[in-house]
């Protein structure tokens, strides 16, 4: 808590992070996403992505984590220009400084697969069932290089299959997708992605649909592809372990927004947003010998159809106080070895704690959830605030009330969703 006083009180813009990162890291900036917004379904539609910004550099790996429905896949689809025409996209997506948003099919096709390639979630359905895998790799080669001969393209396809670790590539090149297992098919998809030496590879949940046993080898194949091409990798997943092993920086998404963004060590060991804290502590720890209870985040993500004002994580947050309902918190710089931002008005209270200390708030909540979740949440929030004496003056400490927080008079606080049938369905039912 010692650094808390030195933090800028006003929200910082993302440009701050970007420029800071630009000085710190090597490699040219390849992909810049700025204030990306995506709406689905017209007027009363879903605001699926709400002001996401990031950039990636050559050779770097950026991880994007979040629950399903947090907008992480939609973000990458928007970058690739692969969303339905019914989706409305605003903001900016730049590749090496040139704008991609608003490009027509012709212009975007020249970028896709050549400059930015993508690996999709489900390898079982990603490959066209009626063409041999060789033909499908050759297609991506020939569409960007009209001069390459069929023979050369085929040779290259075999090489690519070899790089991603498919045995007997010279024979397998003439097989159909249904003759491969899921893991092998994902390798083919990776081979397609790296075929034209792209500058950026976006991998959207590349191992989610696979058996745990083959996940590691597929990740190896992705790493091999990245090394081979020197591409920047945007790795989207809900598997924190994957991010920890592969990424340098990580962006945590919740309800269509980035809620925490920083170096992977900072975010994983010193999370400053309660959602990240909860996410990390819902994983089993292998480094602790005794049995410990896992602490789930209770409730479900909010509907993106009509978000209430205030922090979207508020209803599920054990640190929730009345002020959280006032306005949606901006990303603000917090402590860290690399630029590190978090969107929580009470981030300062977590400073100085590691993820396990911070995670204790969740343990207590989930333990009492069945009895009086609301009460416990209020009490614990009070506890945490009570333990932080040097808070900024504009945030008066919560009195340790043991009653429901809604008794404070400020806008009615949504119930902590201890009841899974309570309103607030995910947008993806």
């Amino acid at each position: 808590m010692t650094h808390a006083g030195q933090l800028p009180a006003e929200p910082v813009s993302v440009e701050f992070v970007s420029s800071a990162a630009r000085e710190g890291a090597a490699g040219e900036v390849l992909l810049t996403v700025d204030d990306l917004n995506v709406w689905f379904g017209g007027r009363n539609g879903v605001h699926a992505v709400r002001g996401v910004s990031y950039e990636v550099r050559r050779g770097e790996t950026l991880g994007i984590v979040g629950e399903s429905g947090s907008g992480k896949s939609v973000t990458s689809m928007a970058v690739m220009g692969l969303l339905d025409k019914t989706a409305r996209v605003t903001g900016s997506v730049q590749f090496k400084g040139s704008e991609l948003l608003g490009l027509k099919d012709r212009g975007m096709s020249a970028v896709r697969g050549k400059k930015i390639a993508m690996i999709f979630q489900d390898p079982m359905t990603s490959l066209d069932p009626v063409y041999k895998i060789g033909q499908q790799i050759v297609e991506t080669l020939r569409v960007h290089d009209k001069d390459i001969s069929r023979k050369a393209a085929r040779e290259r396809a075999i090489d690519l299959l070899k790089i991603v670790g498919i045995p007997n590539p010279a024979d397998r090149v003439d097989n159909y997708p249904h003759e491969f297992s899921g893991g092998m098919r994902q390798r083919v998809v990776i081979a397609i992605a790296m075929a034209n030496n792209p500058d950026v590879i976006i991998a959207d949940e590349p191992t989610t649909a696979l058996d745990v046993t083959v996940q590691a080898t597929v990740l190896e194949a992705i790493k091999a592809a990245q090394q081979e091409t020197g591409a920047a990798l945007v790795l989207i997943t809900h598997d924190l372990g994957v991010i920890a092993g592969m990424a340098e920086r990580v962006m945590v998404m919740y309800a269509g927004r980035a809620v925490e963004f920083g170096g992977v060590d900072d975010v994983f060991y010193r999370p400053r947003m309660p959602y990240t804290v909860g996410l990390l502590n819902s994983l089993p720890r292998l480094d602790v010998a005794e049995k410990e209870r896992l602490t789930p985040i209770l409730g479900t993500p909010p509907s993106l159809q009509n978000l209430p004002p205030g922090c979207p994580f508020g209803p599920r947050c054990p640190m929730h106080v009345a002020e959280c309902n006032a306005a949606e918190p901006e990303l603000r710089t917090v402590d860290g070895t690399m630029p590190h931002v978090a969107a929580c008005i009470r981030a300062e209270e977590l400073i100085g704690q590691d993820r396990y200390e911070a995670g204790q708030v969740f343990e207590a909540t989930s333990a009492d959830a069945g009895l009086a979740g609301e009460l416990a949440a209020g009490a614990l929030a009070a506890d945490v605030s009570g333990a932080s004496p040097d808070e900024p003056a504009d945030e008066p400490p919560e009195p340790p009330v043991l009653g429901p927080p809604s008794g404070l008079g400020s806008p009615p606080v949504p119930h902590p969703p201890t009841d899974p049938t309570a309103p607030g369905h995910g947008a993806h039912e």
Partner: protein
Amino acid sequence: MTVQPSEMQLVVPSGEPENDTEFGTASRSQFRQAVSRFTRSWMSMTALTVFVLIVATAYIAPYIYKWKFNNPDPTALSVPPGKQGHILGTDETGFDLLARLFRGTQRDLLIILVSTSIAVFIGIIVGAVAGYFGAFADNVLMRFVDIMLTVPYLVILILACAKYPNTAGTALGIGFLFGLFGWMGLSRLVRAQFLSLKEREFVEAAHAMGASNFRIIFRHLIPNALSTILVFGTLFAATSIVAETSLTYLGYGVKPPDTSLGLLVSRGVDAVNTRSWLFYYPGLLILVIVLAVNLVGEGIRNAFDPRNNRVRD
């Protein structure tokens, strides 16, 4: 001409049963959802309303209408529409066309009621037995279906009606025949759905709780295949009307003194140059009825299709 609904067109995704399927609740809540989706579609509701109105008129109006279908007006032979109090005119023997259209609609409703119930009943039973028990029963039944499908539907009907004009060639007889030879498509669909449904957890759970095969089929599997059955039933009803007109036109279907929409329009074909109203009005009525039934079927399919409210992540 499509005498039977193309079975491939009828493939309705059964919908992913939700987590709580142990007691078939998913299918019931899915049904409720489908009903609400159906009622919200103006197209489906319009079609249903039109159909209900036509049926109601066909049964109620004859009590009010001055002319009877079996009582010709000897003073008005071949009267064009609107003359001498005959709203849609008369035919060459003085029968009032509108009165005959009421009667014809009634007869066609009888036909589709009989044919659809029989076809749906046999189709479900054969499909359920083949799909649920598999192995030998499946082999025998599906081979039988193959054989039944070898001879064109219309040809089977012609063979039967030509031999027994007084039993098969009546409204009731045609209804029976349509049902008896029209169930094969549904049985294939039900079989395919049962094959995949019986592997699901809720069926295993029912087994584990000691439910009998009979109970599993009727309480768990058939409700889950409901969308397929409903859509088939609706489209089969529509094609039954079209098939009746075809059969009657070829001279093997309904014969006077009985009447049907098919008979009216078939006789209208011969009179098209001299008494064109006898051709166009029955044809128009058939078009409207069949269109309405088809749109209802389409509405049911859409209401059950879970892809309607899919949002991508």
